[in-house]
């Protein structure tokens, strides 16, 4: 059972939230950002090559041109593999844990799995970012020594930065599953 809704990110870019319910205690929430635009790619490439031609006209060394091509290729590969995040997803499996995945434009996926025993709660926090106040969803990790304390805060959806309406949907889905672990009787 999958459904997709469109929202806006904190900077005004359109994003899409996709919710899938795999079973009663397993849900997947994925936020997809916009793909790499051909416009911005051509603009960046043309700027670099114009600068290279300008330098070539000044110093008559053809190495500048090959260096520019090299730099463009390497820069594009680094951008796609390390910087551009296409999709961020949250997989909540009740009684196992929460898995946070970031999928990059080159296909690389970086995953973190947090066990349910370490998760204290999932909350929406406010933060002051430059001149704005933005909302972000985060996982609070339990402090092993102090049952009331929080040892770490793991922020989610950091590159797509959804707005509050999208975050509320994600929050409600997560809380439905997290509540199950409170109502379920603990085995000895």
């Amino acid at each position: 059972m999958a459904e997709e809704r469109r929202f806006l990110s904190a900077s005004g870019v359109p994003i899409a939230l996709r919710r899938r319910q795999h079973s009663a205690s397993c849900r997947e929430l994925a936020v997809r950002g916009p793909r790499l635009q051909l416009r911005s790619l051509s603009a960046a490439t043309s700027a670099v090559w114009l600068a290279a031609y300008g330098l070539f006209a000044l110093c008559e060394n053809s190495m500048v041109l090959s260096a520019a091509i090299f730099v463009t290729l390497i820069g594009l590969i680094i951008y796609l593999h390390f910087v551009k995040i296409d999709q961020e997803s949250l997989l909540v499996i009740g009684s196992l844990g929460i898995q946070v995945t970031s999928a990059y434009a080159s296909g690389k996926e970086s995953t973190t799995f947090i066990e349910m025993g370490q998760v204290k709660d999932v909350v929406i926090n406010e933060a002051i970012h430059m001149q704005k106040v933005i909302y972000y969803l985060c996982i609070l990790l339990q402090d092993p020594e102090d049952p009331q304390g929080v040892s770490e805060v793991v922020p989610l959806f950091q590159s797509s930065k959804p707005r509050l309406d999208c975050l509320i949907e994600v929050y409600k889905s997560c809380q439905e599953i997290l509540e199950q672990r409170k109502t379920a009787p603990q085995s000895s």
Partner: protein
Amino acid sequence: MVLKVFFPSCCSSADSGILIGRWISEQNSAVILAVVHFPFIPVQVKQYLGEVQRVTKVSVSVLGSWSNSKQEKEESLSEFLEDLGTIFCHEPWIQISKEGDSKFWSCSILQKHSKKPQEEEIILVYYDQRKVMLSHLHPPLDTAGQGAEDASKLSAIFDTVARSQVLFMTDRYDEGPIKLTHWQSDGVEASIIVELLKQASVPACMLLTFLLSLLSGICRSRVLKFWPLSFLWSKLSTCEQLGHRLQHLQVVSSNKKAPNQNQLMRKANIFVSLLIDVALGILLMSWLYRKNRIGHLADTLIPVADHVAEELQDLLQWLMGAPAGLKMNRALDQVLGRFFLYHIHLWISYIHLLSPFIEMILWYVGLSACLGLTVALCILSDIIALLTFHIYCFYVYGARLYCLKIYGLSSLWRLFRGKKWNVLRQRVDSCSYDLDQLFIGTLLFTILLFLLPTTALYYLVFTLLRLLVVIVQGLIHLLVDLIDSLPLYSLILRLCRSYRLAAGVKFRVLEQQDGKPLRLLMQINPLSYGGVVQTYRLPTYSCYPRDSWASLCKKLFLGELIYPWKHKGDKQN
């Protein structure tokens, strides 16, 4: 409460039988290790499980039944499987059945003493048994000191599979009463080369240990401990590096098996690091000795030293004139300048005295590059230190003079104001001086103050030269440290067999069908390269920086001698 069943993916096509594994009641999860096939005698199965439990200390028991029917469901088989639940009583009794080639299995639980007759949700998690067995979970550092009830439930699963290795030793060709299916049931694999190496390594290690004990005995003998020699050994970085590598060799050649994973990785890292070091050293040596490059190097050494000395002489002549337009005190200038010039003259004479022997010395010293690239780099650093010894001397003279001047000035300034430094109370007290004391003090203060620019300029110039040499030496030592401490074996393991170093797990949701249990695939999430380097870094003998930038600047201003690179054995001052 949700029941989790960890099923090995190698058993997906196994014939019908009963499931054996470990039941972790705190987590309500069952880790299935193998499938025992029909026909079997229950008593023998229980005996076998008891033996396995004794050897591995893992509470292995019969958890349920597995039926893999190629045709449609056989009614008699399912009743038979339920009856098995009464023979091997286990609470809860898990029944998994697969029809034909269907991906979606049906899973049910039988609870005999069910006080709560609610439908439990079942999650089926597939895992790769071989990878989970070989993998080593790296917990984050802050939870490393937890007890048995720690938050990491996954480590219990990894632990169970890793410790049950003896269970995986019986394969289908064994003539035993029990027929198992697990990841190695098609035959235990071993490599002849690995076995041969293991056999050969024992005498090799013993020989190496004997040689090393001889060597360390010689090094520790009283002959080498006399004062000039011991001072020399402590100052030369080559000897430190050789001592460090000797320690490494001792670790590698010890006969004792490594007690845990960390020690094993450390030994392997040291071994690979030594190997790469020696290989690079031999490469360097072959490059140096081909086309007699070392002869050319020796030939250019003396002219370079001469050139440096000439440049210094020009610098001193410039300082003795009017450097940068500043007006110096003529008499002091001439004294200091002539003093340093004489030093340079002595230095050049010594270098020229040594010049016929340089080529031979360098040739033999270059041979020691076969001990490793790090040793060659340390020798280079020592040669630079020896060649620029005069700069070091000048720096020390200039610094001492400047330091004396600053102390004198500060003490006389206090006298000027009518105060005194109380050594007992470590503070400044007021003091009444006699007239003649004040008179002489003021005179001395004036003299020192007006001679300050000259001394300060000499100090500045020589400190800058010394810092330049220190920076070059520091870069070489940084490179040596990098080669020493990089865990190459761990990095190669992370590249080729990334499942061995696990930072955690990741789950992938497989195709689902309504009414069937949730299917997940558990894969190993490997440690990042940065994490690998941080966890398995080899310790080195130097740690720097010694001083923070603020204290360094303060020392430079006051004229105290600076030794920016500290070694671990040095006492703190």
